[in-house]
């Protein structure tokens, strides 16, 4: 505070109650005698009141539900690290069990894996090649026509049941998977 008037920072600190006792009393005493500083202080207080009365958002009634919905929708549900650990252990155990059951060594299993991969690749390439060949589709059409001619009603029914069962299995798996995700994520 200067001899004549209170400094701007002093007035601000005074209005915020941030001055120590001594300086606070000094400014208070000065304000009671100086009309100019009293007016500046009044403006300072007015600014605080004006700022506090600004219509800022206070709450959003549906926000919690929206956030929860968005988290579920985005598949951002997080499984506990413990569940990941359990999953990893199960994977390792099932691999070990396979090794023991198939009487293979780790090296043998590796070789078998490579062998299977090579076979799978060759088969996949053959399938792609066959699918790209128009002759294949001609044969398929001919075979279907013959099959429809010769297949008994019971065989057709059996095939129908097979496809229905496959559809039910897929739907059940999807449902179980969805439930498992929820159980793992929200305990």
């Amino acid at each position, binding site marked *: 505070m200067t001899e004549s008037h209170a400094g*701007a*920072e002093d007035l*601000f*600190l005074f209005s*915020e109650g*941030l001055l120590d006792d001594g300086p606070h009393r000094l400014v208070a005493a000065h304000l009671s005698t100086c009309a100019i500083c009293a007016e500046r202080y009044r*403006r*300072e207080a*007015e*600014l*605080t*009141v*004006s*700022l*506090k*009365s*600004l*219509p*800022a*958002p*206070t*709450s*959003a*009634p549906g*926000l*919690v539900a*929206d*956030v*929860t919905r*968005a*988290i579920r929708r*985005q598949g*951002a*549900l*997080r*499984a*506990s*690290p413990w569940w990941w650990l359990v999953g990893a252990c199960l994977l390792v155990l099932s691999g070990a069990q396979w090794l023991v059951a198939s009487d293979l060594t780790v090296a043998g299993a590796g070789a078998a894996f490579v062998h299977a991969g090579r076979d799978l690749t060759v088969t996949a390439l053959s399938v792609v090649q066959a699918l790209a060949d128009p002759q294949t589709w001609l044969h398929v059409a001919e075979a279907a026509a013959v099959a429809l001619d010769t297949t008994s009603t019971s065989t057709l029914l059996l095939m129908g049941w097979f496809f229905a069962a496959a559809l039910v299995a897929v739907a059940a798996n999807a449902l179980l998977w969805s439930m498992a995700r929820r159980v*793992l*994520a*929200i*305990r």
Partner: protein
Amino acid sequence: MIEPVTSETDERLAVRSARGDLRAYEELVVRHQRLILRILWARGAWSQEDAEDLAQETFVRAWERLGTYDSSRPFKSWIARIAGNLAIDRHRADSRRPRTTDLDEVGATLTTGGPGPAAIAIENERQRELLSRLRELPEHYRQVIVLRFLEDLSYEEIAELLDLPMGSVKTRIFRGREMLKRRLRPDTVEGEG
């Protein structure tokens, strides 16, 4: 407004949330929605709707990043930083396309009040002017002013939230207010008396 329902600390709830407990996270959203809304609002989310959209995005992003949260630090500061960064990203994206809102839209909520139409009009005009000038302030001044006077946080809370020394908070608020006063028309702060 939904009230918080447990007495667990934010940090404990955040740890539970990080383990996948969505109920615990809902509690955190309830506790901090007002703060986040105001931070976003102060950073240029011009309407309540904008602020709500960004708040939702903030909480979803925070949920996705809970694995990086250090529970020895205040959760409030952590989520406030996420909100701030998100607001900056949004601001950058918005600045690349023409704005479709203006301050009339912003001040749409300013049209309610008690006294007669003339007094309401004057009051609304003053608030619009103040809002407009507040939003023109540099970010580091605007943020502390909003936290202090709109969110009503103490100086200690602001220092903790922004990870700043108390002295810096006081200085920023003082300088921000001085800048605001210079930019306001004389009659905007004075009041009617």
